[in-house]
């Protein structure tokens, strides 16, 4: 595969080149110290050196709120909402976020393939960029390196002079065609290391989680957790939702919409009649972590966490999924030694 050099001074030109082909979504600054994906208007506003965006690109395929249908209360009839595919380039996506999209693909395709997600998602092209792990990233521990280009159409690897650009698919080649760059023949510097780690692979984690259902860490974490649901809502592999009808003030019509929901929210498991079947905060905490490392993983063989670090960074109580998992591993290992 040919490696090109995309110099820093030409990044804006490259963004403009992509814009000439398709709509481009890329990270922008948001607020004082955050980043968010947004449609590119001004190519100079695109930020490729960023730690992580508030939400992953999931928000384009599974929008925070999505109208499923509109209804007319006078005729009792409904109109389905149009699903518009994201025929666009997603520029500056980190490896863990694309991996998260692949996991969502699995969730929305299995058993009952869901048109809403899959239609939106199918035309999307991805231009990835490497990242420098900060204090919260741990994707290396779940098999996703900071320069992992798998699944991308085009990938940009950060070096001192700019980016090494590689096209990985015919679609990627098409995106790059016509944009002239010198070939890059230099070496690839050693990637920067991760600052935190889960120290064991998924098959060991499956075993650890088999024995961690009653670990004290769930109760201890529940003391700190205020149940705000932020960890679910920022997670790129969470996809649970709630459906609600809204009626217009004229009371002649309204709409049915689905909205992101989260298993950490107490009302998530409330059923008709008022029973909340996962009432304890500790049980909800456990459910969240088991969903990332056990329940789906046992069926797919992969962790369902991509190590982006969003849940930890966004938690006002400072709860870290890495600490929880490492604690379970340590407790399990100690128990095994003690009983041996």
């Amino acid at each position, binding site marked *: 595969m040919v490696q090109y050099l995309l110099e820093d001074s030409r990044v804006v030109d490259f963004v403009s080149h992509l814009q000439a082909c398709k709509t481009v979504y890329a990270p922008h600054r948001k607020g004082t110290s955050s980043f968010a994906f947004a449609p590119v208007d001004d190519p100079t506003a695109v930020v490729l050196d960023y730690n992580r965006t*508030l*939400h992953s690109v999931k928000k384009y395929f599974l929008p*925070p709120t999505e109208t499923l249908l509109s209804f007319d209360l006078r005729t009792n009839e409904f109109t389905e909402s149009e699903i518009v595919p994201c025929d666009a380039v997603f520029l500056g996506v980190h490896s863990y976020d694309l991996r998260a999209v692949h996991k969502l693909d699995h969730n929305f395709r299995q058993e009952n393939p869901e048109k809403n997600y899959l239609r939106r998602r199918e035309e999307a092209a991805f231009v990835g960029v490497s990242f420098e792990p900060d204090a919260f990233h741990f994707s290396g521990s779940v098999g996703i390196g900071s320069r992992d280009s798998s699944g991308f159409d085009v990938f940009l690897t950060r070096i001192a002079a700019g980016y090494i650009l590689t096209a990985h698919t015919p679609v990627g080649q098409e995106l790059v065609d016509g944009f002239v760059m010198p070939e890059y023949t230099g070496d690839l510097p050693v990637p920067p290391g991760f600052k935190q780690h889960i120290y064991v692979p998924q098959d060991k984690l499956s075993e650890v989680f088999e024995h961690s259902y009653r670990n004290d860490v769930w109760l201890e974490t529940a003391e700190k957790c205020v149940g705000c649901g*932020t960890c679910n809502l*920022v997670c790129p592999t969470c996809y649970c939702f709630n459906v609600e009808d809204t009626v217009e*003030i004229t009371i002649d019509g309204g709409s049915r919409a689905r909205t992101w929901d989260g298993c950490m929210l107490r009302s998530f498991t409330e059923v008709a009649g008022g029973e909340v079947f996962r009432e304890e905060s500790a049980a909800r905490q456990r459910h969240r972590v088991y969903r990332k490392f056990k329940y789906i993983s046992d069926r797919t063989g992969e962790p369902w966490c991509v190590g982006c670090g969003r849940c930890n960074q966004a938690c006002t109580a400072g709860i870290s999924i890495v600490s929880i998992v490492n604690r379970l591993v340590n407790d399990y290992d100690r128990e095994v030694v003690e009983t041996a």
Partner: protein
Amino acid sequence: MAKPRVGIFDFTGCEGCELNQLNFEDQLLDILGHVDIVEWREAMDGQVDELDIAFVEGSLSTPECITRIHEIRRKSKVLVALGACAVQGGVNAMKNTRPIEEVREEVYGDQKYLFPTLPALPLSAVVKVDFAVRGCPMTQIEFLKVFTSLVMGKAPIEPDSAVCVECKLKENECVVDKGMICLGPITRMGCGARCPTFGQYCNGCRGLVSAPNIEGMQEILVEKGLAMDEAWKRLQLYNANQLEGVQR
């Protein structure tokens, strides 16, 4: 079908919630198309004997309030509390943290015997409240939701998750990351995370979620640099009545 007969009432509060109802410029005609407002001190004269829906603003803070809320309850099929004072006592309830005699003296001096006063109570402490429109002042969007539900004959859905949820749905930058102390993590959503969306912290005006982890919230506030009594005051601003019995 006859239109529901509606009354609007006020107790101790700033009447901002009621004023907010008059501010429905775009929807007021629709609202009036669905109901007959038959009693409303702020906009009309007179009293009626029977109501389908009573919207009640303000907290209860005098013996006279108690008598009157019982009367309203008796004549109303559905009672809806409007705004922080009516729903959870609101800022008025801050006085409940001090001995009532001390409060009376501070406000009325030696005339205090002319003004019988009680701790500021939410309506639900005295009568059955069917539904609530929260906030200080109550949010219009939520009022319209509750209103349309009642007119359709269904129970309004009361959100019971944290303001954080709405902030995340809007992809707001967390104001805590900007160095602010925010009560969003344990405050009930439904306002669309209005304050944080405009760069302000949440002061908890909508009351707390059910089963709130107040101790956990205190720890967060202290961790973020507030002294314990400052943290406690922040929590007391709108939620003094919910803090009773919580370990400080």
